[in-house]
């Protein structure tokens, strides 16, 4: 029996999760929400993390009903993410690991999302779409590595949605993306927007500039403006998600896998899930999607990826437990997954 405590705080959410052999015992989280029309600044998010960290940790331990002596290791997000929030989170994890004399493991945030997705949906070897405020990647596993098949060339899709929400001044509570989704449901007219795919990669910044310009130059009555807002949200979602589905479909055709897993905060979007589902159905694949508890950044995902590494014998020295703002998904040695095909073929 292995019990891991995971700390996540790479952006505006702080979470602590406790995992026991793949069973989620607790997973509380607190989100820093900035006022409408503004994004969150890294120093503010870091201050939020420092203020809530110890309360969330207590909640996680109480709910999980584990004793300190039963815990095997502490894990934290090493990166990628914003510097200040990452450091604030890592400092608590390092102090706790020392106080309780537990090993400390740094976890790649993206790998955390992927392993959590595999745990919750029971997907064995999925093609993964990882979409959030900081990342947009299409990933599949091959030979001890989560390989990136396609990714954004500029800003993340969530960043594009968040910043558009700021332009049209809609609330950041519970999240800008959720509110855009609600406006989009009332959209009637599709407005043509740029559609930018280059090979397997995507670009969102030009689309953002385009919709921003449309939103800022439109004139009309209050009623017309309200409907125009809905139409823009609808058109933006349709365009962006079509791009994601196209790249995922091509990756799926290439890998020949029979599962698509959507992870990351934007993965909560029901419209995205529906579009992906339609594509999967046509290809005879299964869509593995999750709700906001596990899609959005949380502590349990860091604990789960840490558990995989811990069980495979990975141990970090405390002096190596730094943070890094840049840490690509394909830099991680995924030694806990086996290359079944090669074993069968007798290659290894």
């Amino acid at each position, binding site marked *: 029996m292995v019990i891991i405590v995971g700390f996540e705080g790479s952006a505006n959410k702080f979470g602590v999760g406790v995992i026991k052999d793949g069973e989620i015992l607790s997973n509380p989280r607190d989100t820093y929400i900035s006022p409408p029309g503004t994004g969150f600044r890294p120093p503010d998010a870091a201050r939020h993390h420092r203020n809530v960290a*110890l309360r969330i*940790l*207590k909640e996680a331990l109480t709910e999980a009903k584990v004793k300190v002596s039963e815990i095997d290791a502490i894990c934290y997000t090493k990166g990628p993410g914003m510097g200040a929030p990452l450091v604030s989170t890592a*400092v608590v994890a390092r*102090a706790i690991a020392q*106080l309780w004399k537990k090993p400390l493991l740094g976890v790649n945030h993206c790998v955390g999302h992927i392993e959590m997705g595999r745990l919750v949906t029971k997907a064995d070897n999925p093609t993964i779409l990882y979409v959030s405020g900081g990342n947009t990647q299409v990933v599949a596993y091959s030979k001890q590595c989560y390989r990136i098949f396609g990714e954004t060339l500029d800003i993340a899709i969530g960043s594009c949605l968040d910043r558009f929400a700021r332009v049209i001044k809609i609330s950041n509570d519970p999240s800008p993306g959720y509110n855009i989704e609600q406006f989009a449901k009332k959209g009637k007219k599709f407005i043509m927007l740029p559609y930018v795919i280059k090979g397997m990669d995507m670009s969102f910044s030009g689309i953002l500039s385009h919709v921003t310009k449309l939103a800022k130059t439109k004139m009309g009555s209050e009623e017309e403006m309200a409907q125009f807002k809905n139409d823009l949200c609808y058109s933006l979602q349709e365009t962006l998600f079509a791009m994601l589905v196209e790249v995922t479909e091509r990756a799926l055709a290439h890998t020949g896998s029979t599962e698509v897993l959507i992870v990351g905060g934007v993965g909560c979007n029901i419209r995205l899930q529906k579009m992906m589902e339609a594509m999967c159905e046509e290809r005879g694949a299964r869509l593995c999607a999750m709700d906001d508890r596990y899609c959005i950044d949380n502590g349990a995902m860091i604990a789960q990826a840490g558990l995989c590494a811990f069980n495979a014998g990975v141990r970090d020295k*405390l002096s*190596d437990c730094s*943070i890094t703002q840049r840490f690509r998904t394909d830099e991680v040695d995924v030694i806990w997954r086996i290359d079944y095909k090669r074993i069968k073929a007798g290659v290894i």
Partner: protein
Amino acid sequence: MYSMNVEIPFETERHAKIALNSVIQDEEPRAGTHIERKISVERNLLKVSWEAEEARILRTSAQSLLQLLVLVTQTIEQFDGLE
């Protein structure tokens, strides 16, 4: 050149070392300007010294470190000896 020295007393040497090993891993990257931070433990004292070309850079570095040390202190107070 600006410099600053701080000594923070902890209850025990163990606590001071825990604080040291919670913050020492992250060096702040400063492009273009010189800043040096040294942290050490002597008995129950955590000693930090800074040297920087610009006062502003020294202030931000010191401020962020002190904020993190407050967090470590709270963590120690609330979670040391927990069973």
